[in-house]
């Protein structure tokens, strides 16, 4: 069967096979996004002593599908005075990075679409493009709320990207490689979860989760959307499927951040204890934990003011990351790295 197909496609076979694998990654991703929205409503519902959606299907399990169909059937309104091309380009530019970053995410040592050495660099580069979608959408809409939301969002995303970048630098120092597979393998060892990066890089782990929340415009850093002050921010003029794409991109980004957090700080597919086998399920369990944190944050914290967000990003997170970068650099030096306890992580 395989060989027959290989013959049929000839020189195009690698591309076709890669496309098949991409579909195998993207389809469950879409499902995960759909059910993350339901999980969010359910979790926040129970945290507020409500039940959450429970009408469509048993326990509301068909709710995301109903939502998707509804959005599909809605009119796409392009406001007068909007730049039509840029207005439609905005959602494309925000969904593309959210999906394309998955090309290099390793699920197990063997299960990775493309094992490239510069994978972390690629992730940094491609996720940075997400901000263009937001800025273009906000500018093209010709609406004041959209414009304000886009400005805020752009400044916020770039501010937190610096803290995020410094956090990644310390991860690289620990693993001596930009390859995500190597980053996970560097955390492997007999001590299980005690050897993962989250212990020696604990401040960076916290910074990364906070910066990830801010990068995805999630509560409590959601001033870019801020429904009680600028109605919905950059996507106020979007309706139907164009809105759905922004929604999809936000949740796909959340899942991506949770995957990256799991891979870089919590050992990816590695099992937390020696006597259990490693596997993809561990990665999913860790991702679910981080995603639950995101939902928990939203249910717990009131929204930050914009000046507080910028202060947290520039005056707290960046100094913390700079200091910890130097600390890790010192601990990595020759006499120190060999000392007992320290040699668990610095090898």
């Amino acid at each position: 069967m395989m060989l027959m197909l290989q013959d049929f496609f000839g020189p195009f076979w690698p591309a076709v096979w890669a496309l098949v694998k991409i579909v195998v990654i993207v389809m469950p991703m879409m499902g995960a996004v759909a059910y993350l929205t339901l999980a969010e409503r359910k979790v926040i519902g129970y945290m507020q002593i409500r039940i959450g959606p429970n009408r469509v299907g048993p326990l509301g399990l068909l709710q995301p599908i109903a939502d998707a169909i509804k959005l599909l059937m809605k009119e796409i309104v392009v406001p007068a005075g909007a730049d039509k091309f840029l207005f439609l380009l905005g959602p494309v530019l925000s969904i593309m990075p959210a999906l394309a970053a998955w090309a290099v995410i390793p699920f197990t040592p063997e299960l990775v679409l493309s094992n490239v050495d510069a994978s972390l660099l690629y992730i940094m580069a491609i996720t940075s493009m997400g901000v263009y979608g937001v800025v273009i959408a906000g500018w093209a809409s010709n609406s004041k709320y959209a414009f304000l939301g886009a400005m805020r969002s752009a400044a916020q995303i770039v501010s937190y990207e610096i803290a995020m970048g410094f956090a990644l630098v310390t991860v690289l120092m620990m693993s001596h490689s930009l390859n995500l597979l190597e980053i996970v393998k560097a955390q492997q060892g007999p001590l299980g979860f005690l050897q993962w990066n989250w212990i020696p890089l604990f401040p960076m782990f916290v910074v990364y989760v906070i910066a990830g929340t801010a990068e995805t415009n999630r509560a409590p850093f959601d001033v870019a959307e801020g429904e009680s002050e600028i109605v919905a921010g950059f996507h106020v003029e979007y309706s139907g499927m164009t809105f759905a794409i922004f929604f999809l991109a936000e949740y796909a980004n959340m899942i991506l951040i949770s995957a990256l957090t799991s891979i870089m700080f919590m050992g990816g597919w590695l099992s937390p204890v020696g006597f259990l086998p490693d596997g993809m399920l561990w990665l999913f369990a860790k991702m679910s934990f981080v995603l639950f944190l995101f939902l928990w944050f939203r249910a717990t914290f009131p929204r930050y003011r914009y000046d507080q967000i910028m202060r947290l990003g520039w005056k707290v997170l960046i100094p913390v990351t700079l200091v910890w970068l130097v600390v890790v650099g010192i601990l990595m030096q020759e006499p120190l790295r060999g000392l007992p306890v320290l040699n668990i992580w610095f090898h």
Partner: protein
Amino acid sequence: MVQNYLAVLLFILVGLGVGVIAPLLGWILGPRRPDPQKNSPYECGFEAFEDARMRFDVRYYLVAILFILFDLEIAFLFPWAVVLKEVGLFGFVAMMIFLGILVVGFVYEWVKGALEWD
């Protein structure tokens, strides 16, 4: 190795494709009944007062420029971090001098109030 990047390129194209096809489907399946009220920019029930592409705070530019400086710094740190084990103490001290200069600039902009939003 190059073949691995083919998959990355294809994934980018698939990402773009999702962004194009989904709105296209919505455009085909959804109704199209535009009217002047519906197409006007949202302004809480008012007619839009003026053009939305208005002047904005110069501090956004400042943030953008500071971002470029720091992001460039991170780009320099990436290769250094990967080989830190090999370059040892010498490489570490060299980067600390570089970081020190950056921190002086950071402290300066902090004291000057470039990071204040009030």
